[in-house]
């Protein structure tokens, strides 16, 4: 079940330059185990995303690192210093809150200057750094405005500038884009990514949107019910999901359940040779790995099957087909847009694309 153990290579690659180490952290609220024995390293300069459904514990982990909650067990370390025993205001960590939490009684400029003021930074230095931070998020023109006069996207930028002006070692972002509409969100994703590259600050980003996680992250840590399901770079987690849950959560997939017996894998109507020990098995097969076999030819490392098209969903550049392969097996197939299709066709996929996953 704990697939973090199934993926030790990713963990060890970052050990050398770990900025933040979460060591066996657990968090209980009453009888509720919100986080169960989480261990996670974040490398300096990395963009790491905590991905998970609501209630998976991702925000709780963020709040533990920010210092708003105390771990029930385990420790958090940052560059050789124990973090979890420090109050939030002594941590070199800043947060961009989900609803921004801007101070309504202060102008945008004073919001950004807040962190410097409370630490008694000289006034001459404050004005320079505030202007610089406002410039980073392209908000110099709105410095005098109160938050209530700003749009959601502008408030978002001020919240970002307010955190960045303190030059934190680690920036925590709690679903910062979830309140924006789709177009603005795409634009902010792109700006966020380039900003992070430019300033080189480590980002720990929380989201429930797997597309957002894939687009932005160097690595994704997928949380499920308070435990780490898998930690890996986006391409790897997509291509080699460790578990059925990961395969389904990240992108779309066909989960093929079946068994291996006598070096033959059988999943419903599909069967192919496989040199593995006998027993039940699950494969993840991405819809785009399956194509229509026009000429009927099959290589030795490919699997072919006949199926009738039950449904065709047009998606602009591609079509998503629901294919009935008989024996109650349905495959989802994504092919380039090709016009309406009906009736029976032959479908084919490479064995290498059927990735064996754990339950």
């Amino acid at each position, binding site marked *: 079940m704990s697939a973090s153990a199934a993926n030790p290579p990713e963990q060890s690659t970052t050990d050398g330059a770990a900025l933040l180490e979460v060591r066996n952290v657990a968090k209980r609220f009453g009888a509720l185990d919100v986080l169960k024995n989480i261990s996670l390293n974040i490398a300096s300069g990395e963009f790491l995303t905590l991905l998970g459904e609501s209630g998976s514990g991702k925000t709780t982990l963020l709040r533990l690192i920010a*210092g708003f909650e105390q771990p029930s067990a385990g420790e958090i370390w940052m560059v050789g210093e124990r973090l979890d025993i420090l109050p939030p*205001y002594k941590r070199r960590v800043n947060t961009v809150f989900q609803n921004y939490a801007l101070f309504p009684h202060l102008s945008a400029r004073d919001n950004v200057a*807040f962190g410097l003021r409370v630490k008694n930074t000289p006034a001459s230095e404050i004005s320079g750094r505030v202007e610089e931070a406002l410039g980073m998020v392209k908000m110099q023109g709105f410095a005098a405005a109160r938050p209530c006069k700003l749009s959601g996207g502008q408030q978002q930028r001020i919240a970002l500038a307010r955190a960045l002006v303190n030059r934190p070692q680690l920036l925590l972002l709690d679903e910062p884009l979830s309140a924006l509409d789709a177009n603005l969100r795409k634009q902010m994703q792109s700006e966020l990514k380039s900003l992070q590259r430019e300033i080189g600050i480590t980002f720990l980003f929380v989201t429930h949107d797997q597309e957002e996680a894939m687009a932005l992250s160097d690595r994704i840590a997928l949380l499920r019910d308070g435990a780490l399901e898998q930690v890996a770079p986006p391409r790897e987690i997509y291509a080699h999901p460790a578990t059925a849950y990961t395969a389904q959560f990240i992108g779309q997939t066909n989960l093929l359940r079946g068994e291996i017996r006598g070096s033959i894998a059988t999943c419903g109507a599909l069967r192919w040779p496989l040199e593995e020990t006998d027993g039940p098995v699950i494969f993840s097969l991405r819809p785009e790995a399956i194509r229509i076999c026009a000429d009927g030819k099959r290589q030795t490392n490919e699997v072919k099957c006949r199926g009738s098209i039950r449904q065709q969903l047009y998606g602009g550049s591609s079509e998503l087909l629901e294919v009935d392969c008989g024996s109650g097996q349905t495959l989802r197939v994504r092919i380039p847009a090709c016009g309406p299709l009906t009736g029976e066709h032959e479908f084919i996929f490479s064995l290498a694309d059927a990735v064996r996953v754990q339950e």
Partner: protein
Amino acid sequence: MTANSSTRRAPFLALYATLVFGFIYLPIVVLILYSFNRDGVGGFPPRHLTLNWYAQLFADSAIWDSVLNSLIVAAGSVLLALTLGLLAALALDRADFPGKALFRRLVLLPLILPGIITGLSLLMFAVFAGMPLSLFTVFLGHGTALISVATTELFAGLQKMDRAQEEASLDLGATPWQTFWRITLPNLKLSLIAAGLLIFTLSTDEIAVTFFLIGRDNTLPLEIWGRLRRGITPEINAVSTLIFAVSVGLIVIWYHLRARSLGGRSQELLETPGESS
């Protein structure tokens, strides 16, 4: 349909409303009119208008001493009630402690207790404590009895406040103390002003508690009451008119601030019991 029936009922409703409002406000109108009547409280309708009674009032040092006493007591009560009320509201909003529900009710109890009970118990306390009755005991009485008003107002303000703001402040490196002064208090500004105005008004026209705790120096309501026993003089009408004007002004300000700070939320339990003290 509904429009039809409501127009049929309207004449009765209008009559009823006129009678009720007349009953409440006519005496005040009469009082204000007679404060300008040359012939004092006698003679209807008032014929010769004059400002004489106001001139006489402004020359009356006993009245002005009592006004000053009332202002001192009210200002002190505002400070005392707001300080203790803010602490109580913070405890109710943030802390979890055994007996919290009981504490909440106890804090709000003075709102519904008859003034005579509050006054009598405070008097007994003063006597046991060996405290001579004076403006100071009145100030203590008002200040403590009105903590409930401050608590209700400030608790509503705290409930409305976005706690993430305080977390953001801590996150940005502000200590809890800095956070309180720079974030929490400014957010409560409207609630503080609204509660302060209300406490000020309630304290200045308080009689029951004051009556038990007063020493030699009178507050304005007690001064007026004392004079009334010797008959109504037009000067009393004049001073009452001034009090009425100031009260209306303060209440209007209070109402606007409260509407702004609550953002249109319901007025909660303050509305009715506030009258009783």
